[in-house]
């Protein structure tokens, strides 16, 4: 059950935050509000009138606009075409452009209606999403994790825009998992957990500790700090010297990267989306080649990619075949299935993968168990190096803890680990030291939130 009698009361003319961790049901609740999902039970009341929101069109007609976490934009089309999408009759590009400029002026941001969306920055693309809702006459704006892809500077600019909207009589609902954003931005906060409404109150009456406890129901959500204080680090395992990295379209993402990772340490990578982190990780893991420069790495580097369904597992294959998949490119001659079976059983045992035997298909495992399997396989087949990308994406709190534990253990056993997460707090909690990717370069910074956060947007001490 995704939602269990969840309730939400939003006052007109306020900014209301819906707070919950991954899987709490906040996105589901908002998809119901936008007509993307029909609820099995319950009611929706807007301005005192009950509504049946059977489709996004109905929601839009009721004055609701939604800004999705993953933008619902067509990259190949212009801003005007994206905004106009959903109208009827003849499409007059000029009329739409005028309307865009008008609304933009009202809320104090300017976007070229003829620009192709693919060429815009992430913050600007988000503005286009907001524009879409405003042009369609939204009085209630729902934003799903809007600051997830924004550096702090742009997040503040967003808040200004939302305040201007509210001052003009609008209402805002903010979906987020970030405690700090909820307290900073919102007038009222509702906390969801396991699909239920746990608590709802004005922001002034709440503090971080209370909220954290309500969100997870047990101890506070603060990530346990695993960083090593004593230097038990060993030999150099990864050495990047003057490396350049390009993306699959040939655009240079990073230049002159110099990085060393030693055995027994976790190096964290912090960066705003699009700064070359995915490419860098793959170069480290030998899944991609650098455009130039020298790379020294262990023979076999384990790699845990962020999209495990696409890149790490063959869902229709049994567990044992997924284990055999690692390094399948190098295997010669016959497959030693007996050996693979033994290895698979060992991994399942040691990494606490809940499965009914190694011949069951990977598809039958839960997300957390799939991730444990992937981690186990990669750690077991690696020879001293491990690269990990958004390792706890989509996992609940228990699976997340297990993954973090495992990373710490691996580090203690002498593996050189590189971790990237789009969640800054996760990086900081796991890493012994942190590097930041910004402006086509890799920067070393002090391992505290302020320094790292600033560096991510280009403000260096």
């Amino acid at each position, binding site marked *: 059950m995704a939602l269990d009698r969840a309730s939400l009361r939003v006052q007109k003319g306020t900014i209301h935050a819906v707070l919950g961790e991954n899987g709490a049901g906040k996105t589901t609740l908002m998809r119901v509000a936008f007509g*993307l999902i029909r609820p099995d039970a319950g009611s929706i009341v807007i301005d005192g009138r009950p509504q049946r929101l059977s*489709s*996004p*069109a109905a929601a*839009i007609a009721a004055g609701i606009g*939604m800004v*999705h976490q*993953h933008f*619902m*934009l*067509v*990259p*190949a*089309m212009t801003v005007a*075409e*994206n905004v*106009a*999408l*959903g*109208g*009827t*009759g*003849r*499409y007059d590009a000029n009329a739409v452009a005028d309307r865009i400029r008008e609304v933009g002026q009202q809320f104090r941001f300017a976007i070229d209606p003829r620009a192709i969306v693919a060429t815009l920055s992430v913050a600007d693309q988000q503005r286009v999403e907001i524009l*879409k809702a405003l042009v369609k006459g939204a009085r209630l704006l729902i934003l799903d994790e809007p600051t997830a892809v924004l550096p702090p500077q742009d997040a503040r600019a967003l808040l200004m825009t939302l305040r201007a909207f509210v001052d003009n009589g609008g209402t805002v609902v903010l979906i987020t998992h970030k405690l700090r954003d909820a307290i900073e931005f919102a007038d009222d906060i509702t906390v969801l957990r396991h699909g239920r409404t746990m608590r709802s109150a004005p922001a002034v009456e709440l503090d971080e500790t209370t909220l954290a406890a309500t969100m997870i129901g047990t101890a506070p959500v603060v990530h346990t700090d695993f960083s090593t204080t004593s230097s038990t680090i060993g030999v150099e395992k990864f050495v990047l010297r003057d490396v350049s990295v390009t993306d699959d379209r040939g655009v240079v993402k990073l230049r002159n990267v110099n990085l060393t990772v030693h055995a027994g340490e976790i190096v964290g990578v912090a960066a705003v989306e699009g700064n070359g982190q995915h490419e860098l990780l793959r170069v480290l893991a030998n899944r991609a080649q650098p455009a130039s420069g020298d790379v020294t790495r262990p023979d076999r580097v384990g790699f845990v990619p962020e999209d495990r369904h696409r890149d790490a597992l063959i869902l229709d294959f049994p567990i044992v075949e997924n284990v055999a998949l690692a390094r399948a490119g190098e295997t010669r001659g016959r497959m030693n299935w007996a050996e693979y079976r033994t290895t698979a059983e060992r991994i399942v045992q040691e990494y606490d993968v809940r499965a009914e035997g190694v011949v069951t298909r990977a598809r039958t495992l839960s997300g957390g168990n799939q991730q444990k399997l992937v981690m186990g396989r990669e750690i077991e087949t690696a020879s001293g190096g491990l690269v990990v990308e958004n390792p706890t994406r989509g996992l609940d709190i228990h699976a997340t803890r297990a993954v973090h534990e495992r990373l710490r253990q691996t580090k203690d056993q002498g593996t050189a680990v590189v971790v990237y997460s789009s969640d800054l707090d996760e990086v900081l909690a796991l890493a012994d030291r942190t590097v930041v990717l910004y402006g086509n370069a890799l920067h070393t910074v002090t391992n505290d939130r302020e320094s790292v956060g600033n560096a991510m947007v280009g403000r260096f001490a």
Partner: protein
Amino acid sequence: MTSAMLTPFLEGTVRTATPLLFAALGETLVERSGVINIGLEGSIIAGALGGLITAQSAGVWPGFAGAIVAGCVIAMIFATFAVLLRGDQIITGTAVTLLALGATGTIYRLWYGDAGAALTTPTMKAFLIPGLARLPIIGTALFGQPAVTYIAYVLIPALWWWTYHTHAGLALRATGENPEAAEAAGFSPRRIQCLAVLFGGALGGLCGGTLVLAQAGTFAEGMSAGRGFIAIAIVVLGRWNPLGAAIAAVIFGAASALQFLFQAMGWHIPYQVFLALPYVLTLLALATAHSKRQAPYALGRRELHFS
């Protein structure tokens, strides 16, 4: 090269290009919605037989209507399995084409008996547009064709305008690029794709109808001869744009019509070369198009939602 040599060549070009153009215009819209319809060949052959059977009893113009309906029926089968049931588009399309080829062959033999009775049907005569048809060299080629060709002339700018200057066209293009965005804007991507496929089937049927009712005057099993696949190449070459498709179709028509030019010049080349030429040209066209970048982003995608 005299105009006596050029005119048959140009006439042949337009003649060959017309049915290809119908099929390609339809498929352009279909692919813009994110679907590859390999079953287009099936719509063409169905249209050919449907056109023949209808014209036999009701005359030429109703024959075209029958061709369009037959093409739609085949397209409906494809839409059901590939769009509604989300089957693999390539395999479904291939099955639909085989089904149509087998079914038309079976129906033709049952209806008209086996082997060789060359069945004829009344065909559409050339309709010379007064004045324009008398232009030197290009006159009869462009304006002395059967009336159905002039439908193509109207369709090209109409479809271009519809695609880029109406909200419906916008919705179609959005579906082919990012179906989730189309859905968030209030559309049903599946509905749009079904409608597009039906439209493509209608034009595919029209292509087949043109082959029988404006050109051959008879039906032969398999007479579509791969035109559905050539049409797909034309779509790619034309960069998924109705105007581009028109230009590409003319190029293909010209290549086929080359045999007239060669004959007139007295060059003797085995006739199989000209028969094979459209297919070779398709390969060359696809190889040089380097088109992956400009294809509708979600082309061929089966899952239209974040699951």
